[in-house]
């Protein structure tokens, strides 16, 4: 395959984020291991490898829970946008920690028989009809396979070759992986761990992730469709309703959403769907004169929907007009990259 693509730049901010992320991962593992060695739970003792299995397992699950909170929370507060921007690195790191957890489990619990470790994983406990003794490791294995596919295709090369639609569909598999991991922990660790904090953390994590996603999904489905007037123009709202450098998002009937931006005294409308991974452009803002996607920072000029050179992405623009201080947009998109003069606030119509 030789599809051209533009990878998301490795900015100094991304490097700094990665350093902090790796420091956090290292710190968690050190603290967990130290606490397990110095202050083991009453009446229990663990081998070093068992401590590492517990440390990597809890860390991977906590990280995945956090990752799944990033998207919804970033829609509520801009403070979470940096995490959104670096979510893929967090995801790949989580997969690698999960892989270490699985490797240690296979080594410790399945590595001392004549059977292949994977055969042993699925065959050593055949109690698939029992809830209490369910072979929970198989659930974790399937979740890890899904995360493997996601981690290996997380690079922009795959996004460009598979197309944003297929890529996004593939990566929505994380929800299935999370469900499998909740079951893996619930039927596994929760059955053995005596401390109630484990149950509380699992239930609270699943509840928070579920609430956040359901809330944002329902809120997103209620975006105003605007009032359709004569000749197909949609009423967006008063010019003052659009914050400078930001957008209002419209949902035309049977069409993709439109982001109507204000840049100083200029009003212009573009597609709400980023060409990179379908990110919601209307939730981004104007930086350096370009609309900037909140997901990975892809940029588009407001006047023609084109990415600034050397990038070549193009999105649709839409005609706009202002009448008596009210903004209207024509929901018929121009071909991607078509120049469309912005409407000027205060200009005579």
């Amino acid at each position, binding site marked *: 395959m030789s599809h051209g693509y533009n990878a998301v730049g490795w900015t100094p901010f991304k490097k700094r984020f990665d350093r902090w992320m790796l420091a956090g991962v290292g710190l968690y593992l050190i603290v967990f291991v130290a606490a397990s060695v110095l202050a083991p739970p009453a009446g229990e003792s663990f081998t070093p490898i068992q401590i590492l299995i517990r440390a990597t397992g809890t860390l991977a699950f906590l990280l995945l829970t956090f990752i799944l909170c990033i998207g919804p929370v970033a829609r509520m507060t801009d403070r979470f946008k940096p995490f959104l921007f670096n979510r893929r690195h967090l995801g790949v790191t989580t997969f690698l920690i999960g892989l270490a957890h699985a490797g240690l489990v296979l080594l410790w619990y399945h590595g001392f028989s004549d059977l292949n470790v994977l055969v042993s994983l699925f065959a050593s406990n055949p109690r698939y009809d029992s*809830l*209490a003794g369910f072979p929970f490791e198989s659930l974790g294995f399937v979740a890890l396979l899904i995360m493997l596919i996601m981690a290996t295709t997380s690079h922009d090369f795959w996004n460009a070759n598979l197309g944003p*639609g297929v890529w*996004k*569909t593939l990566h*929505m598999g994380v*929800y299935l992986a999370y*469900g499998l991991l*909740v*079951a893996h922990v*619930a*039927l596994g660790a*929760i*059955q053995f761990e*005596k401390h109630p904090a484990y*149950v509380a953390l*699992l*239930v609270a994590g*699943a509840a928070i992730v*579920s*609430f956040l*996603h*359901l809330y944002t*999904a*329902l809120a*997103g*489905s209620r975006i105003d469709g605007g009032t359709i007037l004569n000749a197909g123009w949609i009423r967006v709202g008063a010019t003052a309703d659009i914050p400078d450098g930001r957008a209002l998002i419209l949902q035309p009937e049977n069409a*993709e*959403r439109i982001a109507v931006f204000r840049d100083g005294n200029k009003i212009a409308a573009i597609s709400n*769907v980023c060409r990179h991974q*379908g*990110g*919601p452009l209307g939730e981004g803002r104007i930086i350096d004169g370009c609309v900037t996607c909140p997901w990975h920072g892809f940029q588009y000029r407001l006047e023609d929907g084109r990415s600034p050179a050397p990038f070549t992405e193009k999105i649709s623009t839409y005609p706009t007009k202002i009448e008596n201080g009210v903004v209207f947009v024509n929901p018929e998109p121009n071909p991607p990259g078509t120049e469309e003069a912005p409407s000027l606030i205060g200009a005579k119509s």
Partner: protein
Amino acid sequence: MKRQHRRRHLITWIILPPVLAVILWLAIQVRPDPPLNETLPPSLVEAAS
């Protein structure tokens, strides 16, 4: 997100929370009770000896 992905996301999160709730509830139900304190009351020990 494109419309189809938004719809898929909404459907996923309408289905997933009750499924997770059932799994968690069942898992907590079958969770073994903490071991009983095996120390015999002193009165029983005295009576036995």
